[in-house]
């Protein structure tokens, strides 16, 4: 082994929130040198995920992932964050995997390495590597387990004296309680309550509805929450709940709502279980909504026929000025915070039958990842406008 001094790889910032960009830079290479940049992450389930791009150094011996084009690999072109969003399970892994962080108090560790050459780069030991930490929780964010008045979930509170605007955060079916989006929203200045609602067996539609109203009020009445600045954010099934609460509740009034990958076939007066089945063509009545609403959908969503139903909602008159729509071509159902890998199909357990299946979520990796990045930024600016700034009737972005 030679004593030649190796290239220098740096990732800046080395510690960041998951929705922040980083710069990956390699220096001290020979000029015009083909190299491969690779990311590697071991998930909490002990699966290995990787991404890689093929690059060529410039005359100064530098490769800058933010500035240079990748010539091939898991992504091509100028993609500063390609090493994260294009990650896939390494060859030989189990099928249908999904990458989701359960413990949000620790960072996601990603090892970035540079290897010589393009073909067969994995056979060679890396020339240099660096470790990046990706956090869902900013310093000072507090995590609190909630089990109150029958309502269960996890509350995240931003650092500082408060009081803060707040969000009720609801996911869809198929997973346990997911905290990471709420942790990230708290890191962006919102008290955020990730609600656990799919585990317990609810008895009737009325009891279910009351559960959500109670959850909303628990947030509203929290000493660090500004009571008239509470919104709802829901994805998939969670967005159906969000919509119904906003349209039909007589006791809660969200300031604004965000619905990601929603479907509006769920008539009021039916249970969640029933809502999983495709019901009548009856749509919800748009005129019942009284607050700004942001709808985010992927046009290639294979899981819910979303685009069609939303288009129909727009046709109902009266409250169109409250509605903003983001429809992303090539994006699938699982629109999540940015830079996380895209899953076109993953394992899923059906709530009713407990059957294990592979569900097709849709989307193609590059447009889906662009959609995640763009939608997150727009969701945050929508929330900032309606929950931080003075109230405004205009909802169009």
């Amino acid at each position, binding site marked *: 082994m030679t004593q030649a*001094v190796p290239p220098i790889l740096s990732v800046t910032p080395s*510690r960041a929130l998951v929705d922040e960009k980083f710069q990956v*830079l390699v220096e*001290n290479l020979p000029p015009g040198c083909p190299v491969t940049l690779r990311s590697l992450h071991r998930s909490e389930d002990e699966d290995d995920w990787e991404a890689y791009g093929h690059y060529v150094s410039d005359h100064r011996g530098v490769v800058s992932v933010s500035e240079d084009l990748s010539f091939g690999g898991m992504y091509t072109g100028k993609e500063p964050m390609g090493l994260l969003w294009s990650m896939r399970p390494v060859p030989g892994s189990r099928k249908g995997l999904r990458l989701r962080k359960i413990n949000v108090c620790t960072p996601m560790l990603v090892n970035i390495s540079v290897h010589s050459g393009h073909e067969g780069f994995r056979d060679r030991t890396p020339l240099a*590597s660096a*470790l990046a930490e990706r956090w869902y929780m*900013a*310093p000072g964010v507090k995590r609190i387990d909630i089990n109150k008045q029958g309502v269960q979930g996890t509350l995240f509170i931003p650092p*500082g004296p408060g009081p803060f605007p707040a969000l009720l955060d609801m996911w869809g079916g198929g997973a346990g309680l997911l905290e990471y989006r709420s942790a990230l929203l708290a890191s962006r*200045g919102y008290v955020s309550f990730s609600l656990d609602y799919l585990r317990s067996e609810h008895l009737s539609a009325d009891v279910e509805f009351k559960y959500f109203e109670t959850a909303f009020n628990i947030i509203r009445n929290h000493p660090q929450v500004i009571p008239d600045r509470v919104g709802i954010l829901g994805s998939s099934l969670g967005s159906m709940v969000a919509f119904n609460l906003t349209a039909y509740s007589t006791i809660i009034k969200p300031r604004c709502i965000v619905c990601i990958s929603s479907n509006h076939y769920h008539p009021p007066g039916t249970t969640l279980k029933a809502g999983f089945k495709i019901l009548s063509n009856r749509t919800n009545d748009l005129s019942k909504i009284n607050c700004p609403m942001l709808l985010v959908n992927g046009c290639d969503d294979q899981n819910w026929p979303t685009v069609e139903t939303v288009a129909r909602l727009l046709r109902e008159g009266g409250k169109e000025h409250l509605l903003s729509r983001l429809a992303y071509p090539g994006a699938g159902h699982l629109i999540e915070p940015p830079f996380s890998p895209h899953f076109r199909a993953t394992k899923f357990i059906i709530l009713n039958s407990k059957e294990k299946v592979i569900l097709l979520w849709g989307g193609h990796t590059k447009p889906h990842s662009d959609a995640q990045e763009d939608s997150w930024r727009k969701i945050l600016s929508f929330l900032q406008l309606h929950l931080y700034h003075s109230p405004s009737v205009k909802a169009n972005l």
Partner: protein
Amino acid sequence: MDRKQCCVKLSVQPSRGLMDEKFIVLVQNALPGSQLTIRALHQCEDGHSWEAFGHYTADTTGTIDVSEDPSIRGTYSGVEQMGLLWSLRPIPGSKPGLRMRKKNIQTPMEVTISVYQGHQTEGFADLVPLSGVVVERWYMAPGVRRIPVTEGGLTATLFLPSGPGPFPGLLDLWGGGGQLVEYRAALLASHGFASMAIDYLTSKFTMETGKMVDNQYFETAYRVLQQHPQVCGSKIAMIGLSFGTSMTLKMAIYSEVIKLSAAVCISGSHVQPVEGSVEEIMGFFQKNAGKTRFNEKNEAIWRDLLLPIPTDPSLKADVGRLQCPLLLVVGEDDQNWPAQESALDIKEMMARAGNSHLLTVLSYPNAGHLIEPPYTPHARSSTFKTVEIQEKVMCLWGGQTVEHSRAQEDAWKKILVFLRENLYGGRNPTSFSHL
């Protein structure tokens, strides 16, 4: 009466950074034109509280950007992106002579940054801020490994950068206060250098035997570093501050074993009995202790102990024999060592010997003795105990805070570039542009 503002948003980016990284402090959604105070609060490991603050006026969009907008007054004024850190000072009522130094570098320095209504100067503990965030400042990048070293009788800590290596090596020496001071080595490892912080005055050997270490101690450290499988044995440099400079020059010039690729000497001198042991060099300084002066605050000034710079060659390390690049960092207001006079003499000696192409001098007006990595508070004086004197003394280090802080920032960047060029052989390094 100002009505309390609602929902003022404060953010600091990055919220977790290295100690030498800049951050951006942003206030948004404030009332346009409102007067606000941004304050930093830190409780150090000794339990003392430190604060810094600036007075600002929100612009017409209700925004304050500390990296672009001026502080009208406070512990710093003007456009000072990092003023909230380098102008930190002990809160009123603290005991005098404090100096902030982190001992445990495996945890971050936590700073709470808050924004208050109005232009406040005191009594912050009784005020409720409009908003507050917590910022972490780290000496160690993720993946840097900390390895205690005891072989060969050493009291040292090795910090290895993340990755397979091999990495150039660095021996890191502090001054007359002794102890094993790790933070600079940890930070240097975060920039790609396998760095070994060495305790050479209060090592386990010295504490147990009462004897000072000999020259072999440094050579052992060099060998241990050189032989490490992840260290590039032919690319080792040495960095010393204060008395550490004396050791660095001694080893660079006279050791048969130590072959340095570069040397960095901060706030020190080449004046020392040539061929002297550590003990003899210490003794040489002690002999001149009578030249200590005291200022009107009864703070000890030690810079005269080595003045005037001798003409006798046996009393100066022969820098004309240096064969590696040397970077000298000098604070022109150094009250503890005659660094500026020494630098001038070193320059002359090297010019006469014909090796002055190896010398770079960074000389900073109004900077003091303690030129450290940037964005930590400047101590113009502090209580100090050398290994020779058993009682604590209030030592005058020198420097004016603003210029000293700028010197730290500039010197650090240049030290990193110097080390990169001489140890990695690169040209035009770009990865320090965010510092």
